[in-house]
Structures are given as C-alpha cells and as structure tokens.
C-alpha cells in the first residue's frame, strides 16, 4: 500500500491567522497578509519545506491530509 505523502505539490493550506503551509506540521512559507499564495508557493522557503517532505517518514495519515489511498 502506497501511503507516501503527496502534499508537496498538491496543496497549500492557509490557517486562521494567515500563515501559509504546505505541510501543517512544518514551518510556514509565508503569510497571506504580506505574500500572495503564488509567491509563497514558488519561494525558497517552499523549496526547503518540500525537501523535508520528501524525506519525511512520519506516518501521520491524518484525516484531510492528501495521502494516496490505494492498495
């Protein structure tokens, strides 16, 4: 069963205070108050977070996370 995390290129989350994240357990890549989603998505901070996601072994599989569900 492939349960690898797929969030790196498929979703962006903006929380109630405006922080933008690719993974909710990782650091923000910007805030909506001073950065657009497009700028944040293409930023160096986003690249760094993606590197961490690719090697992340955390089996979070939390509801609403976008992991693949097939056997």
């Amino acid at each position, binding site marked *: *069963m492939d*349960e690898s995390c*797929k969030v790196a290129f*498929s*979703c*962006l*989350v*903006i*929380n*109630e*205070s*405006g922080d933008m994240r690719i993974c*909710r*357990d990782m650091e923000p890549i910007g805030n*909506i*108050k001073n950065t*657009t*989603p*497009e700028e944040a*998505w293409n930023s160096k901070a986003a690249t760094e977070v993606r590197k961490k996601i690719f090697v992340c072994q955390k*089996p*979070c*599989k*939390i*509801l*609403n*996370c*976008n*992991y*693949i*569900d*097939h*056997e």
Partner: protein
Amino acid sequence: MSKDSLGISFEMCNFCNLNCKMCGIHLQNRKDCKSGFLSFENWKKGVLSLSKIKGRYIDLVPHWIGEPLLNLDFGKMMLFAFNNNENNKLFHHFQFSTNGLLINKHLDAIKECVSMKNQSENTFYFINISLDAYSDLTFSKIKGKNGLEVVKENIKLLLDIQQNFGYPKLHLSFIIMEENKHEAGLFKEFWVNEFTKRNLPHAVSCRFICEDLNVIYFRRLSNPSDQISANKLHQEIVSSIGVQDNLYNKYPGGGEF
C-alpha cells in the same frame, strides 16, 4: 483532485463543535495554537490572489481541520468568492468537509452560490459530510454529543438544492471503526434509498472518488498506532456489506479529501 489541480485550503475555524474520537485535530501539535477564525479580510486577500496562479486547476477548499461552518462569516465569504469568480477566473471547483450540524445556517448562501450563472455549473462541486453512524446512540458515542437527526435534515435540504440545480454533490462519509462497524450496512441502505427515491446519481465506494456523483463513502480509519488492523477491519466490513472494490482500476490514485 486531478493531476494538475492545486488545492488551496483555508482554515475558516480551527476548532470544532464535536469531539470525534478519530479526528486528526487531536493529533496536532496545538500547544501554541489559540482558537480562532479566518478573518473576512484575509479571505478576500487570499481568494482574489488566486487569479495569479497560472497553469493549475484551483480547488478552493474553505476547510482544513476545524468545523468551517462555525465561522459566522462563512456565507458572506462564500458569496464573495463566487461573486468574483466569473468565468472561473479564480477557482474551478469549490468543495469542503463539514460535520453537517450548521448547514441550515448557511443554506441561503449555498443556494445563491450554486445558482450563479457566470461560471461553470459544477463550480460548487461537492460537500463532504462526516456522519459515521446510522443510529443516534452510535453518533453520540463517536462524536461526543447528539445531533444525527439535525445532520440528516440538513442533508435533505442540500438534496433539495441539488434536485433544482444539479449541485453540490454530496459525499456522505462513514469511517469504519469498532464502534460503528455493525451499522455500516444500515447506513448504506438508508442513504442509497434517499438518493434513489430522488432519482439522484450515486455510488457506494470504499475509496475516495471525485466525479459528478453523490458518494456514500466508507473510509478507512487513519490510525498511526495500528494502521494494519484499521485496514483489515475496513476490508472486512466493506466486503460484508457488498461494496466492491472495483474502482481501483478506474481511480488508481484516489487521494483522501
């Protein structure tokens, strides 16, 4: 979510009015997290800036972990997004998850958004409603309080809208657990009957599917401490109620919503 789609989720409210035992909200590191709502100003700013994202199909998802309909501005925010989305210049689909308890508070706004003519008719694509129970007793055991009848009535109101406008489709989800496994068959029968008597297209699935259909969706429990047992239970129960896993070839990579 198709290959070139990008889901933009907004956390409208970071807490919930239920206390479901299987919910990921309990697994978050929320030590420094205060309860709060997304402001209308931040919503406006974020939604309007979606036009700058090129080459992706945008799924606008006004929901992340908390219950989005607790945000009293939810209807106003939704109307703002749809009113500024002529020719789908901001987003292609709009979809969210809710526990369904407060749908009636936002029904007029939902109806107004679904009926807008200046964007694709399937823009308000679907609403996922987490039910997870057939009986009041099981609902309250899993979710910490009563409310199943309210949710059922709200779903019927949404079905009335769908009968008039075609959308939003509904995903009625049931996460299979020890506490509710005995009700899976009754749940399936009840909701198949509701869709059938309204002549609304529907499917019963054990995987996430995203098409122009209503879906009665039997989900696996996400259980980091014992995923193997959760998977086994899911397989046993869906098989026992006759839900075929024949969608695999058609939807090989159906991601969780």
